[in-house]
């Protein structure tokens, strides 16, 4: 049953590539619904047992899958309305690729076999490439090229990491299937040096995909050039998938008793990401790039949180959930802004409260959310990470962490305030906003809000199960 979550979008996706655009839109949304149903079945453990060693439903995987499925539901809804208002010559390709992309990401979420995980992550790159270059403008071509090449190189290195992990097993003459679940059982016997080497390549390889600095370079280009629904999916779901891959390896390291080392590596990369995004959010001129850098920052925060472990790991997982919700909402709002103003340059936007009030509202609310203000969830997660980090005695790390947060907030708030509040010279609006397009971002934000007020026990349990394997606990 589990495999259906990627079989179905795969099949429908291929079909949609060859079907007319109108049918494709319907198929897109209905597949999203079906995918959500299967995810729910899996979430509540209602489906039958697995018959394969390649896949498994780990708690962290289920978490990523659930976020993915939930986001895709709203993003596909948005896409349906969005497509109704923009002219896209290759719409079937776009819709089909969205589904294929969904399929690949679902596969990442449930992959257990190391190489299968690698295959799935590489597949996400390839399936999402068409989404970025669907406009075929010079900029989008450049973005796609960088995306595909850099990510492929990175992920190729991750393959090397896989080999090293496998070899660490051979060095100690153990023979178990090379899936994470079975490796975890023998983790303590693995050769530490090769495991460390494997981890490095894992982190650098999948970190490229996750947007960890200094391998993040493709991310701002790709996220800003992709059509907004695709950007939302890239930022909200894909990055989580890449993170999942890194997380799996960290888990293995932790079980093997090398948690200290992998934690340090994750914290270092996380902080580097935050600093780099601070550099580029200050004085940014393009609002989609700003959001992209903010994704880098948040991936950095998650990496730091996971690296610190303990309470911070819980915070990191919460951060992942809320970041996905809020960031995809922001990207969808950005899509509305782009439709309205016809430009991604911040200087040419303005007076949003008057011209695009609903979008202005969602955009600013999303910004408040991403900056860690209540009532949105990132407030809780960032607070937990800070508390956890100090508890763990990582004073320097938390110093840099806070410093970057302040810088990023200073940079981003200036831009967002300019966009939403400043006076625009003329009142030209290309496409007036509609409820249909404003609703998905609102709903996503409301979900984040609802999860702050009431977190379902099953999510809480899942997070706890997920982080228990890296020493994460809610009790410090």
């Amino acid at each position, binding site marked *: 049953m589990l495999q259906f979550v990627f079989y179905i979008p795969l099949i429908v996706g291929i079909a949609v590539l060859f079907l007319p655009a109108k049918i494709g839109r319907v198929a897109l949304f209905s597949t999203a619904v079906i995918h959500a149903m299967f995810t729910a079945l899996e979430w509540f453990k209602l489906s039958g047992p697995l018959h394969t060693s390649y896949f498994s439903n780990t708690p962290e995987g289920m978490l990523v899958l659930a976020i993915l499925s939930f986001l895709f539901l709203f993003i596909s809804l948005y896409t349906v309305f969005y497509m109704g208002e923009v002219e896209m010559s290759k719409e079937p390709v776009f819709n089909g690729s969205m589904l294929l992309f969904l399929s690949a990401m679902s596969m990442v979420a449930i992959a257990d076999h190391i190489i299968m995980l690698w295959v799935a992550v590489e597949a996400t790159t390839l399936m999402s490439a068409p989404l970025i270059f669907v406009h075929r403008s010079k900029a989008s071509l450049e973005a796609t090229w960088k995306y*595909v090449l850099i990510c492929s190189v990175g992920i190729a290195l991750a393959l*090397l990491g896989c080999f090293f992990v*496998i070899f660490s097993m051979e060095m100690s003459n153990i023979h178990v299937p090379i899936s994470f679940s079975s490796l975890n059982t023998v983790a303590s016997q693995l050769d530490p040096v090769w495991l460390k080497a494997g981890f490095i390549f894992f982190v650098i390889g999948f970190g490229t995909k996750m947007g960890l600095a200094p391998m993040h370079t493709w991310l*701002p*280009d790709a996220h800003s050039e992709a059509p907004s629904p695709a950007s939302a999916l890239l930022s909200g779901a894909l990055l989580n998938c890449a993170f999942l891959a890194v997380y799996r390896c960290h888990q293995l390291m932790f079980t093997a008793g090398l948690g200290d080392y992998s934690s340090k590596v994750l914290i270092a990369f996380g902080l580097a990401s935050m600093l780099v995004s601070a550099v580029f959010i200050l004085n940014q001129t393009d609002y989609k790039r700003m959001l992209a850098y903010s994704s880098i920052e948040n991936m950095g925060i998650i990496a730091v949180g996971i690296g610190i472990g303990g309470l911070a790991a819980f915070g990191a997982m919460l951060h992942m959930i809320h970041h996905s919700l809020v960031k995809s909402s922001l990207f969808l709002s950005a899509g509305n802004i782009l439709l309205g103003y016809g430009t991604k340059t911040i200087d040419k936007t303005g007076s949003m409260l008057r011209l695009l009030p609903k979008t202005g509202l969602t955009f600013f609310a999303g910004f408040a959310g991403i900056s860690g203000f209540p009532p949105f969830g990132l407030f809780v997660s960032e607070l937990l990470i800070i508390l956890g980090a100090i508890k763990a005695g990582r004073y320097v790390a938390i110093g840099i962490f806070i410093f970057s947060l302040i810088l990023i907030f200073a940079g981003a708030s200036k831009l967002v305030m300019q966009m939403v509040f400043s006076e625009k010279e003329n009142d030209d609006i290309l496409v007036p906003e509609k409820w249909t397009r404003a609703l998905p971002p609102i709903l996503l934000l409301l979900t984040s809000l609802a999860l702050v007020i009431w977190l379902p026990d099953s999510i809480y349990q899942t997070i706890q199960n997920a982080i228990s394997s890296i020493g994460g606990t809610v009790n410090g």
Partner: protein
Amino acid sequence: MIHISNIFLAMILLSVLLSLRSNRLMALVKLMAFQGIVVSAVPMVLDTAHGLTFNLIMFFILLVLVKGILIPGMMSVAVNKVVASREIEPIIGYHASLFAGLIMIVFSVYITNQLNLASLAASHKLLLVTGITTMGAGLILLMARRKAITQVIGYLMMENGIYLIGTALAKEVHTQYVVEFAVLLDLLVAVLVMGIVLNDINHTFDDVDTALLGQLKD
């Protein structure tokens, strides 16, 4: 058998060094095809415990098909469409690249000797050297050349190198063909996607020079 595998590895190294100093795109593609076939054959000539099985042969054929024919074929199509089929003004010059390649070999020998790999057979060690060199050379190509096509070739070379390292390290028991096949499929699709993008780049920019692809920055 050892001698045969060594010869194969020498051929790979040769193709690596040649590709580092080649400035013609077509020549590079041909080198890649050659390298692809040789790399595919390496598992066959290694002294494996199980000898030649049917699966192994089938997989060899598949590998050759993809790495030796399909991918180079696509690349040559792309190259034919490009107006300027030479690499002009590489970022790192040919001699320097070649020299870097040589250093890479020395470096990989050094690394391989440093590693405590008692369990590996001598042939595997040489394989490891070749693999690392190939990977490194691929990365050098990626960083040193301006033409997008050359970068794809660099990527392929790097992939070959990683494949060789994998072959050197991993024993057969762990490689399941479903997985290997999936990896291969990914590679194929990756090159396909790159080819499509390349084609579009060529169309839009009238060249595949990555110097033109530097507009997105901060």
